[in-house]
């Protein structure tokens, strides 16, 4: 909306006496919006409506894998009661991964923005490079690296640093995998915010007798908050719905909600409605959490 108002200018909201010229301009604005609106309609609204419709369907008796239209709210009841632990686990793991990613990403982004000098581009390439290989392949590679007879586990075992004797197929591996996979989404927005920060403002902190830590706390960190906010959202949202890390790195027990959705869609004849209800619930839950989060920590601009 704001985009429309900006492009169209005041006459768009004041239709009493539009000058012919501005009328034409406002048409241009709608025309410019058209591809975006169409795109949203076809690739977002339509699938969403389809998903909502599926989530209320019932199984066709006697024909596994077939459904009929219904208003079966039992699917939602089942999604919320049977799979509450899976939701909790998803949010916990995604939250942990977001926190870890923040801890790793902030110093990295800080170094890239202020200390890297001529190494900055190289560091940037290193952060982005993993995107050149498929997400699944990279996760699969981790499952090989962390395998029981791989060198990582063996050396840790020799040093008696691994009480369980395995890394792979544990929740630790899942959180590590999520952190690894979504790290660039945390680094890039924080870097973008820091890089835009005016160094003179930070210097001013020193001029006003603040020590390094106080300057960071009261000046640098607040200035990077839009980036932190964007980064946490970009990490948390996909991590909460992820199933690949759990599938490839996780244990057999204690699955995440993404795995349940995947299994309901793919392994259970007649699981579509529950899977759709779960997807919807997950979406609503994430939306609510993000809304509260942005209300609490939000700033005027998201990068």
């Amino acid at each position, binding site marked *: 909306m704001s985009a429309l108002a900006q492009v169209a200018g005041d006459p768009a909201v004041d239709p009493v006496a539009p000058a012919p010229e501005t009328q034409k301009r406002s048409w241009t604005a709608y025309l410019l919006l058209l591809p975006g609106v169409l795109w949203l*309609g076809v690739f977002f609204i339509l699938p969403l409506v*389809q998903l909502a419709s599926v989530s209320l369907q019932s199984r066709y*008796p006697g024909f596994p894998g077939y459904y009929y239209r219904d208003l079966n709210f039992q699917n939602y009841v089942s999604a919320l009661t049977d799979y509450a632990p899976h939701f909790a686990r998803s949010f916990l793991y995604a939250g942990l991964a977001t926190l870890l990613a923040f801890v790793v990403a902030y110093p990295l982004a800080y170094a890239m923005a202020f200390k890297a000098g001529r190494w900055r581009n190289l560091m940037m390439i290193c952060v982005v490079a993993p995107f050149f290989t498929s997400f699944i392949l990279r996760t699969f590679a981790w499952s090989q690296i962390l395998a*029981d007879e791989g060198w990582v586990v063996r050396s840790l075992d020799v040093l008696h640093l691994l009480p369980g004797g395995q890394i792979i*197929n544990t929740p630790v591996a899942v959180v590590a995998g999520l952190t690894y996979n979504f790290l660039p989404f945390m680094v890039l927005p924080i870097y973008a915010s820091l890089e835009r920060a005016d160094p003179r403002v930070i210097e001013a902190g020193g001029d006003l007798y603040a020590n390094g830590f106080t300057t960071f706390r009261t000046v640098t960190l607040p200035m990077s908050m839009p980036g932190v906010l964007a980064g946490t959202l970009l990490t948390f949202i996909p991590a909460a719905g992820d199933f690949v890390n759990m599938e490839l790195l996780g244990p057999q027990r204690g*699955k995440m909600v993404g795995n349940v959705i995947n299994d309901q*869609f*793919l*392994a259970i004849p007649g699981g579509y409605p529950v899977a759709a209800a779960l997807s919807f619930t997950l979406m609503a839950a994430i939306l609510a959490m993000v809304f509260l989060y942005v209300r609490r920590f939000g700033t005027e601009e998201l990068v």
Partner: protein
Amino acid sequence: MTPIPRRSRRPLSEPAAAITRAASGGMSRRALLGTGLAAGALSACAPPKPPAGSGGLSSLDLPEDVSDSEKILKWANWTAYLDMNGKETKSPTLDAFMQQTGIEVSYSEDVDDNDSYYAKVAPQLRAGQSIDRDIFTLTDWMTGRVIRDQLCQPLELIQMPNVVSNLLQPLKDVSFDPGRQHSITWQSGFAGIGYNRDKVGRELKSLDDLWADDLKGRIVVLSEFRDTAGLVMQSQGVDIDSDFGRAEFEAALDFIEQKIEEGYIRKVKGNSYMEDLTSGNAVAGITWSGDIFVLSFDTGDPAWTFTIPESGGTLWSDNLMVPITSTHRSNAQKLMDYYYDPAVAAQVAAWVNYVCPVEGAQAEMEKIDPELAESPWIFPTADFISESNIQGFRSLDADEEIEFADLWSTKVMGN
């Protein structure tokens, strides 16, 4: 309000029609969703109807076969299921077929598990879309479902003389495909215990031998419940080929669940369990027969052993089918016929080590490897099957199929 399943291509039964009316046209729903776009989308996304019961060939809408002008064929199969050269890049028998016929075959190991493959392709096939495959390979019970759902094409046996004369007698008429009108057996195999004798350090003879403290967390089992639960039920004294019910099945699942929770079973997987055996995450498990021989060959480690547990094992077959939307049925039939040439079948069997469904292949195998010609894993005798208590999992009706899959998903898969 439960609709009665349709038996013919007549309009919907009354309750179903009422539901459809209520869901699609109703003003209340339109008002509820607010926008016309939403209502339009809703009417566009009606779930597909189940196929009419015994419609027969006439009701099938087959696409035009362009095999003559397009000499290509795309085949979806399971891992370690076709003879390969040393580098695992090419298959000698497939290369020979391509040279002989001029048909370019692209072979892909797409199938990791029956359910997930079916769930992936079925919606596309029902919508009449191409899945970019001309042959897929699925297990008996899933073959039954594909045929019932009319998602595969009828085959012209008259075009496949090798199949007609060489398909083993017991496989010529099977319950899920009477008269083999829609599917042809690719290979059969056993589910039993696969393990590395050196790493385990002893022989594993019964299923209970798997639940040992030194093997804790180093065991994988198959996500195919007919095999894993089947083996466990056999060890609990159930005849899995006769009339057992939900209670026996649930008891087996409780047992498996307990073994997962106690940490004995590490993962429940599709055909990708072979990766865990290769990487050393697991040293034993419930596996398929041929895979273990291939693993032994690939890793050069003769310690990999397959055995049928004392309480018995399962026997199943995988079947070749032509997806309903494929336009290369003749090419597919040529390939099926080619693999029923005993000499070719023996070549495949010598590599995959699964039960060969081709009459005369045993004699051909004598020429390749006399030892393999005696192998009960490739050419089992009736005595071997009955003495080892090898059974096929009984066929489930549609309701049981859903019920059992639900139970399996919750109790064992951890969902």
